[in-house]
């Protein structure tokens, strides 16, 4: 099995990541280019690996292929138009992105959101979390060579997206949340459809879980691969499942509850070793927690009511000020730093994308591992390049 002595300590920052390492006789080092177009890189991400045989000696990550200048574009759009840009950051978890942005503007304006709208937001965000994690489970299986579980996962994800389409008109890129509420109320058959959907998702999850999680080959590919210590995880700013896999019990929904998350009873799963399998299995467990949150929200939600605050219908002009709002996205903690100068457009908007920080630890995680493992290690981070590059 994989190399036992996996004491991955990060080399110092000045060890020359950008320069070619001098090839000094023995051992022979080779440059191996991976990406930007590579099925395992989940987008356009390029790594230049320096390998000594099958062992990775150093790696230089290259990002920016999907850079669209989203933060700059936000400065030129009105507050409501920015929502569409947030859809396109983490394009696997659109609702979660919209949620954090509208919350930032609402905090700035001191806007109260109708309770029904907030419950619907939580339900949609948690569904989106499950859809995102299902995609992760599917691709994790594929990266490790398991085809079948992906079928169950994609079936579950497609079911969720069909519901999203009924709600917002789009499978992805919903543009459904509004500052102060939602664009419109959900369709009349939303609750019956959701009630029907819940056991189906659970079934899809359980089926792929049974096939994949404790499969011997899958375990051999993932267990003890590239463990990250809690100290390293915190130092690199890893958040979300990548942080919790290292044993740090930290979830923004619990630690600093936002929206309605203080009204729900849920667990924060943590890992033990911080290896690839922990990062994988933690997300599986999170799906079950999300299902539980949705069930509680369905019970608590008022059956009818307004879904958009009257202030949100107007041209949004928040008072001058600064706001930083955090949220737990499927990939980790997203933050929005918004500076307003009192006009109808943001003066400056900075997104703290979870994948960006998670990916910045890739060098630490890959050095001293095998080339064949690099694919699952990268996969276990669950990056979305739309968010890394913005």
């Amino acid at each position, binding site marked *: 099995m994989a190399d036992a002595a996996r004491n991955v300590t*990060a080399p110092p*920052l*000045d060890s020359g*990541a*950008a320069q070619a390492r001098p090839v000094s006789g023995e051992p022979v080092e080779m440059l191996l280019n991976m990406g930007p177009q590579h099925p395992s890189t989940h987008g356009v991400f390029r790594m230049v690996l320096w390998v000594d045989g099958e062992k990775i000696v150093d790696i230089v990550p290259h*990002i*920016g292929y999907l*850079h669209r*200048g989203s*933060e*700059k*574009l936000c400065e*030129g759009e009105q507050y409501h138009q920015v929502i569409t840009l947030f859809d396109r950051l983490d394009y696997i978890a659109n609702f979660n992105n919209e949620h954090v942005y509208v*919350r930032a503007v609402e*905090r*700035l304006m001191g806007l109260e959101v109708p309770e029904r709208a907030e419950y619907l937001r939580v339900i949609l965000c948690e569904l989106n979390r499950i859809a995102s994690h299902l995609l992760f489970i599917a691709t994790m299986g594929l990266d490790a060579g398991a085809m079948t579980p992906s079928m169950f996962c994609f079936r579950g994800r497609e079911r969720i997206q069909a519901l999203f389409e009924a709600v917002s008109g789009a499978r992805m890129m919903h543009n459904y949340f509004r500052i102060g509420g939602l664009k419109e109320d959900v369709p009349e058959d939303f609750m019956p459809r959701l009630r029907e959907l819940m056991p189906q998702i659970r079934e899809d999850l359980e089926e792929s879980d049974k096939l994949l999680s404790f499969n011997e080959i899958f375990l051999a590919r993932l267990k003890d691969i590239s463990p990250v210590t809690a100290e390293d995880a*915190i*130092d*690199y*700013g890893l958040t979300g499942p990548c942080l919790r896999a290292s044993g*740090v019990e*930290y979830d923004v929904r619990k*630690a*600093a*509850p*936002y929206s309605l998350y203080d009204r729900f009873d849920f667990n924060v799963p943590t890992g033990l070793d911080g290896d690839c399998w922990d990062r994988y299995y933690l997300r599986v467990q999170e799906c079950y927690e999300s299902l539980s949150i949705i069930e509680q929200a369905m019970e608590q939600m008022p059956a009818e009511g307004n879904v958009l605050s009257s202030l949100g219908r107007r041209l949004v002009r928040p008072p001058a*000020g*600064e*706001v*930083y*709002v*955090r949220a737990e996205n499927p990939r980790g*903690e997203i*933050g929005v*730093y918004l*500076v307003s100068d009192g006009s109808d457009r943001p*003066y*400056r908007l*900075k997104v*703290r994308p979870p994948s*960006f*920080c998670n990916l*910045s*630890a890739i060098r630490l995680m890959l050095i001293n591992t095998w080339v064949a493992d690099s694919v699952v290690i990268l996969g276990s981070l669950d990056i979305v390049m739309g968010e890394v*590059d*913005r």
Partner: protein
Amino acid sequence: MPNEEHPETAPAAGANDEPEGPDLSSLSADARALLDSALELLRDYGPRPDLPIQGEGSGIPRLRFDRRHTLEVCRAVKDDERVGAKMLLCLSAVDYPERTISRDSGSGNGEGPDVASEPAEGEGDEPGPVGVFEVFYVLQSLEPEGTLVLKTEAPYADPVVPSVAGVWRAADWYEREAHDMFGIRFAGHPDLSPLLLYDGFEGYPGRKEFPFYEYREF
């Protein structure tokens, strides 16, 4: 919560508009305690509490400090038990082309050894008497739960801030990004090569002066 002044910081406070010191009444008790311990910890570096940043629940305490002390301040808040800013959540800059640098935010008067006085290299940079980059650091303490925002300023003419990549490794990419977007040099950063932009990109797209909807062949 009573709005009390901090004796050691009262003279320096209110660098901008608030002569009486900022209104900290929106902060929760925990956030206020965090701010107080940070102020006490950083007493030697002349921290100036600013209006809290709005956030979930109560606000997030915000501290300004002189960029000369960046490294010392960041090391101190990271290592201190009570502040415990073990995690750097976010680092970036805000461009204020019209603003002049606030009173004691370092202007050539015996600055630290790292801060060079020559203007930034590169194109599209127009040094002028006004124009300030505000560099902010969003820091997170996991135990006890608490968020703290640090701010420092660098003028257009000398956009250099000491790098904190040696304090939090998360700062590495953030500083490269801020260098791409604003042309801020982070003194002591090991490798400020372009991260999000391609090699040879001209100008700094994060700055306000950079045109929005112009296309460029490449």
